[in-house]
């Protein structure tokens, strides 16, 4: 195993280190809390000569991704970062980038969406853009953030995939929390991630017209190919993780990460940093002899429908914790999990817990309450399908 240096850094800084170690050629930046620190660290690296990149301070997030697309279309490794309002401001460009098949990597600091204004965390920003054609991965700690920036380039740039990747970090809880992170040497990362060789790019020897328009007789074929590329990403994600493990000794379980699920009667599904709290709750309940488990979904796209169904197939009740709500229905993670369960003919009672919106704390006791609800559902008692957890206002219940 290669030698790795231990840093004590925040999630944002871990991302900046990942961008540096990936030898990113073009970085476009626009500030928004809580992503800003990542860009500040990159600026410092550029100022101190530690990062050789074309660093562009653009005038909006729309331009940040637009410039990134121009750079990627020319065949360079490209990174940008945003959050919340900025991600939404990019919406047009998100679809454009995936349709253009440009392997851009973007960090998104998950943050609530106005109105009301809130700089604090939930996942309504990225989940509302689930259909924009980006691979979406959600990481749990700073080490995983660093590792996934490097892996994201390897996944995005794979010829079968050529699809942009959004690496999501929960705002503040991860972006601003300091943790030890092991950082391999530049040579070690170079050995894992060679320079990007774009199979298709604007080229003086072979001029191309790109990002063209289509007509009804051919548009669907392009969309089908995009879908195929996303499907092709499944094995590529696994291969990249295997190779990463061989190089650096760390692995995260691929599309999902199941914890104490094997004999679990009740399983809670989580996305992002809340998984840490949930793991603690599961351990406590296990000590009391309760058969509970935890399923962390790492990739929301491509969605691990088979893996989720397999992990949940023996559960007698399933809960999905959503830091999101699609008003007028339910949480988006819940919708996706349910579809996976039904599609694979696994149909335990399933409940949706809406929690942690706009930075609201989710404590161990909240998770325990969710498992209590699941116990009731398991015993056939009537339960609320979609429940807001830890509400500070009186409800009609």
């Amino acid at each position, binding site marked *: 195993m290669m030698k790795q240096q231990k840093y004590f850094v925040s999630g944002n800084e871990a991302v900046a280190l990942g961008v540096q170690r990936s030898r990113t*050629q*073009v970085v*476009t930046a626009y500030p928004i809390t809580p992503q800003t620190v990542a860009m500040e660290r990159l600026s410092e690296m550029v100022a101190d000569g530690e990062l050789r*990149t*074309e660093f*562009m*301070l*653009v*005038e*909006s997030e*729309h*331009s*940040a991704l*637009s*410039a*990134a*697309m*121009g*750079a*990627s*279309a*020319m*065949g*360079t490794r*490209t990174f940008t970062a945003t959050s919340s309002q900025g991600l939404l401001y990019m919406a*047009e*460009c998100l679809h*454009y980038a995936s349709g253009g098949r440009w392997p851009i990597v973007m960090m998104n600091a998950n943050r609530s969406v106005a109105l009301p204004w809130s700089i604090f965390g939930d996942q309504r920003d990225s989940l509302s853009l689930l259909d924009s054609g980006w691979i979406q991965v959600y990481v749990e700690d700073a080490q995983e953030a660093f590792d996934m920036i490097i892996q994201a380039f390897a996944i995005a740039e794979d010829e079968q995939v050529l699809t942009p990747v959004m690496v999501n970090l929960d705002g503040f809880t991860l972006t601003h929390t300091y943790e030890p992170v092991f950082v391999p040497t530049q040579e070690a990362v170079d050995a894992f991630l060679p320079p990007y060789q774009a199979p298709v790019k*604007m*080229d*003086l020897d072979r*001029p*191309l*017209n*790109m*990002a*063209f*328009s*289509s*007509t009804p007789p*051919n548009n669907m074929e392009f969309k089908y190919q995009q879908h195929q590329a996303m499907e092709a990403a499944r094995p590529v994600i696994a291969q990249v993780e295997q190779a990463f493990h061989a190089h650096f000794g760390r692995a995260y379980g691929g599309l999902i990460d199941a914890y104490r699920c094997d004999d679990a009667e009740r399983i809670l599904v989580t996305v992002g940093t809340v998984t840490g709290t949930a793991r603690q709750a599961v351990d406590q309940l296990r000590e009391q002899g309760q058969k509970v488990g935890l399923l962390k979904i790492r990739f929301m796209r491509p969605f691990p429908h088979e893996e989720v169904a397999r992990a949940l197939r023996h559960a007698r009740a399933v809960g999905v914790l959503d830091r999101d709500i699609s008003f007028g229905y339910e949480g988006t993670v819940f919708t996706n999990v349910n579809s996976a369960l039904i599609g694979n003919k696994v149909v335990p009672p399933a409940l949706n817990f809406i929690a942690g919106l706009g930075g609201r704390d989710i404590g161990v006791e909240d998770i325990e309450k969710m498992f209590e609800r699941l116990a009731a559902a398991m015993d056939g008692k009537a339960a609320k399908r979609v429940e807001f957890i830890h509400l500070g206002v009186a409800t009609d219940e």
Partner: protein
Amino acid sequence: MNNAVFSSRNMTEQEFFFGHKACAGCGGALAVRLALKVLGERTFAALPAGCMSAVGFIYPQMAFGINAIISTFAGTASMLAGMAAAARAQGLEDVHIVGFAGDGGTADIGIQALSGAIDRGERIIYICYDNEAYMNTGTQKSGLTPLGARTTTTPDGSVVGGSTTKKKNMFDIVAAHGIDYAATASIGYYQDYMNKVLRASQCGGTAYIHVMAPCPTGWGIPTEHALTIARESVDCGLWYLAEYSQGKYRLNQRPETFTPVEDYLRKQGRFKHLQSDDIAQAVRDRDARWQYMLTQWSDA
């Protein structure tokens, strides 16, 4: 800096924009074609949503002989900037990064990205082909539609007749950034235009060219009149040929007498409804603008 290099005699026979689906007599298509003759094959172009991208990139028929890409409507200048950054990152030298955006794509939705690119001093050439309305969507009013012009969103109604706002002054707005090179042009004076493209490509920084490019379809003129009407827009003084660099403005043409504004307007369907008051207003606005240019641009 103003040695005329391009003329109809020495311009290349090579074509870089052909086989597209623009209407007959399209001024925008000519502006793109001529500029690419100046810039040559080591050129990377970005075009936002608008007529020129709509007619040039219909899969599988691609109309550009150089590297070209459609940008988002608002993202011409930012995509160009990203391309320029990538060219630097890859050590590509002697290349031109050029954008061709319409009046709507420039003065309205794309002005933020354009302003940012000028501010950063990006090495790009941004060419606004001005046909004075959102043509690709069917002739709606843009920020560069002149006062009184009939468009589909400023119809000639019984209460309001045509556009109620004046044309934004993009050349001044761009120059106010302290850009390296800016110019106005007209496809009616194509030699002047092509030489400005050449100077833009040699300025070593950010360049902006605003070229009047009539649209026969939207203006209500015969297809064979685009060039003459473009020339007349300058001759009557409603448009002007100027340059800006190193903090100085220069008028390239200072007509002794203007041809009648009324003749220019009456030839176009979009101005058919104008009353004599409206025409008098157009003349007053023209005179005020010339007064301004001649007095404020001390080097004019």
